C-alpha cells in the first residue's frame, strides 16, 4: 500500500497537468459549439469537399449538426493527447527507476519485486481512472449544457470509457517500450513518434480497410462512430484489449523481476 501511495503522489504532476490541458481543450471546444451550429451550412459545405476517408480519419460524422458528431471530432484529438500521456507515464516507470535508482531502493527491501511492479502499475492506473472520472463528468456536463436534442447518457459514458480503455492499452505499451529505453531522458520524443505511427496506421486503415491493421492499432478498437451506431463496443476488441493488457503486464513484470542492477559493470 505504501508503494501505491508513493507512486500515486510521485506521478501526480503529469496527470494533473494533462487533465488541466484536456479540460481547457474540451471547455474551449464546447464553448465554440454555438458558433459552429449557427454556421452549420457553411461547415456542411466545407466538409462535403473532403473525401470520406479524411472525414472518417478526423472523426467527422455525416450528421454534422448533432452535438455528438461535434464531440466525435473533438474526441479524435483528445484521444491522441490521452494516448500520448498514457504512453509517456508508462515509459517513465522504468526510466525513473533507472535514473533515480528507485529500483535499487526497492530491490533491497523485504518485498517481492513483482509486487513492487504491481503496486507501481496500480498507483498509475488509479490516476488514469481519476482523470477519466473528472473528464467524463466535465464532458457530460458540457454536453448537457450545449445539447439541442436528446442524447443517451449511456452512449456518452461508452464514448468516454473508450478513452480510458485506449489509455490503459497505451500505458502498457509505454511500459514495454520504457523497459528498453531505461537510460533515455527524452522519452516524450519516442512517445510522440509511437502515437504518430499508430495514427498513421489509423489513416491507412480508414483508407484501405485492412482487417489486420484494426487489431494492431489501439486507436481502431473503439471508434466513436461505431459506438454511436451500435450503442455498444465490439466484443472482439474488448477481448483483444484484455489479452494485450494481460500479456504486456506479464511480460513487463517478468522484466522487472529479473532486472539486474549494476550487472553490466566490472566494479
Amino acid at each position, binding site marked *: 500500500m*505504501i508503494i501505491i501511495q*508513493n507512486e500515486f503522489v510521485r506521478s501526480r504532476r503529469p496527470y494533473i497537468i494533462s487533465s488541466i490541458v484536456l479540460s481547457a481543450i474540451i471547455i474551449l471546444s464546447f464553448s465554440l459549439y454555438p458558433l459552429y451550429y449557427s454556421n452549420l451550412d457553411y461547415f456542411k459545405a466545407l466538409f462535403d469537399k473532403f473525401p470520406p476517408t479524411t472525414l472518417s480519419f478526423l472523426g467527422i460524422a455525416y450528421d454534422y449538426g448533432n452535438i455528438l458528431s461535434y464531440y466525435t471530432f473533438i474526441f479524435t484529438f483528445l484521444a491522441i493527447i490521452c494516448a500520448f500521456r498514457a504512453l509517456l507515464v508508462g515509459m517513465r516507470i522504468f526510466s525513473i527507476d533507472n*535514473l*533515480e*535508482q*528507485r529500483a*535499487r*531502493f526497492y*530491490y*533491497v*527491501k*523485504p*518485498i*517481492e519485486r513483482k509486487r513492487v511492479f504491481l503496486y507501481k502499475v496500480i498507483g498509475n492506473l488509479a490516476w488514469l481512472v481519476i482523470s477519466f472520472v473528472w473528464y467524463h463528468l466535465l464532458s457530460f456536463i458540457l454536453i448537457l449544457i450545449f445539447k439541442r436534442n436528446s442524447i443517451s447518457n449511456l452512449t456518452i459514458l461508452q464514448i468516454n470509457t473508450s478513452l480510458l480503455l485506449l489509455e490503459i492499452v497505451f500505458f502498457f505499451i509505454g511500459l514495454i517500450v520504457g523497459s528498453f529505453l531505461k537510460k533515455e531522458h527524452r522519452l516524450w520524443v519516442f512517445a510522440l513518434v509511437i502515437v504518430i505511427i499508430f495514427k498513421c496506421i489509423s489513416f491507412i486503415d480508414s483508407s484501405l480497410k485492412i482487417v489486420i491493421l484494426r487489431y494492431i492499432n489501439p486507436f481502431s478498437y473503439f471508434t466513436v462512430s461505431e459506438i454511436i451506431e451500435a450503442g455498444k463496443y465490439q466484443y472482439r476488441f474488448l477481448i483483444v484489449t484484455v489479452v494485450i493488457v494481460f500479456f504486456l503486464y506479464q511480460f513487463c513484470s517478468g522484466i522487472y523481476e*529479473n532486472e*539486474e*542492477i*549494476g*550487472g*553490466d*559493470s*566490472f*566494479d
Partner: protein
Amino acid sequence: MERVTIEVKRITKEIGSKKSLDNIDLTAHASEILALIGPNGSGTCSLCRALVGLINVDQGKISYFNHSLKNDKAYIMNFVGYKPSLFVPWKKTSLIKYFTYSSKFYQGDFLPNALRLMEYFHLMPQAKLENLTAEELQKVAIIDAIYFDPEVIILENLMTSLSADTKALVKALLLDLKARSKTIIFTANNLDDADFADTKRLMKNGAILPLDSYEHINKDYKRVLIKAKRAIDLEELRGPRYKGLVIDGDQAFFIYLGDVNSLLAALGNIALVDISITNPCLEELYRVIE
C-alpha cells in the same frame, strides 16, 4: 567461533565473455568485519551486488542463516542492510521523508534510529537529498544500510569520498555494530581503509585470492624509492625481488619482495642520498602481484 551468517558457495557470474565473479567461496560469521579489497574492476562490488540479489549469479548458491537468497530473498532482506557504491538522491526528497518512507518496509519503528544516526553524522533531517555533498550522500547511504538494525550489513566502497574525521566515525560505528554481533562486509580500494577489518580478502579479476594473501602482501611487499650519488646501473637491481623497476638516472623506483632487512642488505653496494620505504598502494601491488 560465532555462528555462520552468510555462506557463498562457488558463485560465478559472466558478463559477455568475461567473468565478473569467478568461482567464489566465502563465509562470514556474526561479530565479524570482513573487508573485500581490490581496485576498480576486481569484482568486489559485483560480489556485494550478488550478495543482495541485485545481480543474478550464473552458478553457485548464496545463503543467509541457511535460507537461500534465490528462494527467500524478500524474507532475507529483513535482516540485510546494503549500501550501494553510488547513492543517487531522490529529487526533492528530504532526509526525514526518505527515511520515513524507507522505514515503512520494515517491521518495527526504526525512524528514531535513523534520526539518531543523522545526528551522529551531523546531518540535518530536513535537508533535501539533492542538495547534499558527495560525502553527505555517503553518510546517508551508510545510515540507510544500518538504521533498521540488520544482522548483516553490506557496504560497497565504504570509505570513498569520506574525510578522515568521518572515516573515524564510521570505523567507531562499525566496531560498535560488531560488538552487537552483526556481520559487516565492506569493499575497499586501498589497504589502509581496511585496517580495522577482522578478515581481509583480496580480489582480482572476479576471484578471491588465497586467504593469506593480505598478510603476505602487507608484510612482504615494500614500495621503494631511492636516490643515489651516481647513476644507478640496471644490473645492480636485477633479480626476482625487484618488481616494476623504473630507473631514471640517479633515481630508481620499484616494489621490493622481501623484508626491510634483506632490502637494506641488497642496497648495500649503492651509495644512497635518500631512500623512501612505504607500503605500496593496491594498484601498484596488483600490477606486480602474481
